[in-house]
């Protein structure tokens, strides 16, 4: 099975590192960064399959990060995370091309399933854009 290249973007360090560690255990290639800006830089350099992006970040927020990621590499599927009851942000996100959105806290298994789904979607999109 091909390994999934995942980018995790969240300015909440505790949460991010814990999640990254847990996802790595599940055999994912995880890179984690603490800001939208860093994420954009990485997306330019490296091919990722899926990005998990927190909506509420200081500086560049999750929606803006999503926009820019999709601009640079539309094949990266983005899953939005939100710690707050902002359905509006979820809708806005999906409208802008996010794969789906999840509420924090989320169970790692659910997140993993969502990542795999997004990855499948990415492979599909790849086939259809070539």
């Amino acid at each position: 099975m091909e390994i999934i290249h995942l980018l995790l973007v969240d300015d909440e360090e505790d949460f991010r590192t814990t999640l990254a560690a847990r996802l790595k255990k599940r055999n994912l290639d995880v890179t984690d960064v603490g800001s939208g800006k860093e994420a954009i830089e990485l997306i330019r350099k490296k091919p990722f399959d899926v990005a998990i992006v927190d909506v509420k970040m200081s500086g560049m927020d999750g929606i803006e990060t999503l926009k820019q990621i999709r601009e640079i590499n539309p094949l990266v599927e983005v899953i939005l995370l939100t710690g707050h009851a902002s359905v509006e942000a979820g809708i806005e996100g999906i409208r802008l091309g996010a794969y789906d959105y999840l509420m924090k806290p989320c169970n790692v298994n659910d997140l993993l399933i969502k990542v795999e789904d997004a990855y499948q979607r990415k492979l599909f999109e790849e086939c259809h854009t070539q």
Partner: protein
Amino acid sequence: MPYSVKITMFKKLNLLKRIKSRKGTFSCDNLSNVFRFKYSCFKMLLDSNTEFLKVISDIEEKLQGQQVFGMSYVRSRAAQAVFHTFRMVKNLDDLSGHRYSLLFDVLEKINLSIKEVLGKRKEIPQTELILPYRQINAEMVDWVGGKNANLGEIFNRVGLSIPGGFAVTTRAFESFLAYNELFDEISRKKMEIIPDNPETINAISKDIQQLIVSAYLPPELEKAILLAYAKLAEAGGDGKSPDFPFRVSMRSSAIGEDSELSFAGQYLSKLNVPSDQLIQAYKEIVASLYSPRAIAYRLNKGIRDEDIAMSVACLQMVESVASGVMYSRNPFNLLEGNIIITAVWGLGPYAVEGTITPDSYTVAKNCQIITAEISHKTVQLVSDSEGGLVEIPVAVEFRDKPCLSPEEIGILVGYALKLEEHYKCPQDIEWAIDKGGHLFILQSRPLRIGKQNQSITPLLTSYPLLIEKGAIASAGVGFGPAFHVDSDEDLMNFPEGAVLVARHSSPKFVMVMKKTRAIITDMGNVAGHMASLAREFAVPTVVNTKTATTVISSGMEVTVDAYSGRVYRGRVPELESFQSTREFPMKDTPVYKVLREVCDWIVPLHLMDPKSPNFAPSFCRSLHDISRLVHESSYTEIFQLSDFVSDKKGIAFKLKGNLPLDLYVIDLGGGLRETSKNLNRVSLDKIVSAPFNALLRGMMHEDFQQNQLRPVEFKGFLSVMREQMLSPPSTVERFGDRSYAIISDKYLNFSSRVGYHYSILDSYCSQTPNMNYITFSFKGGAADDIRRNRRVRAIAMILKLIDFVVEAVGDRVDARYQKHDCSLIEEKLDIIGRLLQFTRQMDMLMSNENSVEALAKNFLAGNYNL
């Protein structure tokens, strides 16, 4: 978004993928990828449909007005409804190759209207950390929780005495958590919970509670609590009585969708708290939001942490001489009209805990004591000078003495009547009497009437009983002349004030729900669509009576007792007083009006008939319309997809075998043994998919092999033909359409159209019972609406009897069976295989209502040849 349901749904949908990924590389020319993509859209759509319907039923319940809720509830529900509708539209649009983009605009228009309604009511954000009760009323539930809001209401609007005190608001709760950055910390810890493993829940609960209890209050909050306490103590006469130092009780008053939970006393309350333990007690009560049971409850119900908050009630401790509970009506006999009081010496907990038998009084509204059972009370609970409570013996001369004097009983009865009048529903009241003889109300909440399926009104033998037992779809009492409804025309002619009598329930009855006094049906489901409408309109409704249309003739005057599921002939004066009490306090509030308005954009369903030309995006006027349209269309899309793929060599194989079906098999991996890319046919022995084999076993059951299908009854056949000729060509499905099985070793998705019906079966069958499931949808059929519905009801009945969870709406049945051993899953698939064959013969035989049950019984008895 309710989470747990989502989880299971996505677990399921992912199985398909994991099976495939294990097989290795993803190849672009493989059309099964298209399948996987589209099926993932389909499942997300179904998932959101389920969530959306849950939101609707929840809103309907709140619209009855008996539960308190605030603007945050209205906002979050509206947002969820919009989100799930959006997700449905998005997935249908993706699934169909973007042929439904128009729906986005329709949705956006409705969304804007909802926002407009919500925007009208500007909330004044509450910034106070502490609120005294004289400033609190029922509308402030978002800031002070249900218990506090009710106490404020009782004090300020009902005008009864409550102990002095104040509420520590949810604003205080937020500032406490924020000050310690606990939101994120709790989120992080909660991630480690494995929902079906109670041990992880216990461990995480302990961690989180520890975290909260050891955190510090923001200095301004601590100051505010202590100051409010000092003021209370001063007013409460602290220091005047050396025997009783001033103490408070601190009770949880949570907000959120957890009325069940607080009802069950799951959150902490502390009695007799001295000033130096005040802050600690506050933290412990906040921490009780994360007790293992509270966490598990919220996981199960899909309630998010963002939607909960803890306010605390801080009340002067009433050093009660006697205390107890009072019901403003007998919960097991509403007709009695008497008040029930239980009383103990000392503090209240012993009145409810069952430690001792309390005195028990039945009192008429005019204060006449009907029965008084004075028990032998040896112990009582009192405040301990160290804090907390202590059990002491009751003085010998008081042990057999009544706790209440007739005067006190008189005052209590007066309170009960006032509370019931104010809340417009029977109340469950906690009270206490102090040394000075002052009576205080400690809590009042809606009385839980009876238990499920239990009669709460007695059988009245002096009136002719027409129906002894039906299922209660909407409680209440209604009197009027019966009017039979068999057709749409009957609905048009429905007289004001009549009682509707029909063979089966139908959402169409909504047209007359404002005119009708009650509804009685032979068949029907309390969880059905009509039942929820009846509840919304507060129409007393009894369904599934079996005999209503036979024993009640048109014009006969009847009294429907939808508290106990009975119908009497004529007028029953004893029940009449229950007819009109349908107004509830929430209904007068601005928040209720907003919910009502928002609901108009969410709940009403106008798109009823998929065959109507109006069943189209531009006719959608509510989110319910959109979701209905999307749901319906998604099935069509899935079939078109299958049709498209079935002609491709090496992808779909036509199944060779003695089956009366045009069946194509699409293997996702491991479902077939050694197939050749060049063949387009496959024989039965090549199938290794466990669930598919089980289904085929049933379909090929010898009883179906030996006999030809039963010759169609002439009359039945004619009606099938007529329908086929009269229906517009686009909606007539062909006989003998293709069926598809999408399989892997452990997975099966079987979709078939036989005759006029379609069915979709989805199943996973592995060694891990928790992952196993069957979902089955069956819709439509030949013949007219009535026969079609009969068949659907017969299928629903069969599935229910073999342990499926079943929902039947109109001419569709949706059934679920999950988390069982693979042997059981296979057994059920075998039965469904037989059922699919059996149903081919069924609608011709549905000539009358009795055939529904007869057919179901025949099937289960193994008589397949009709």
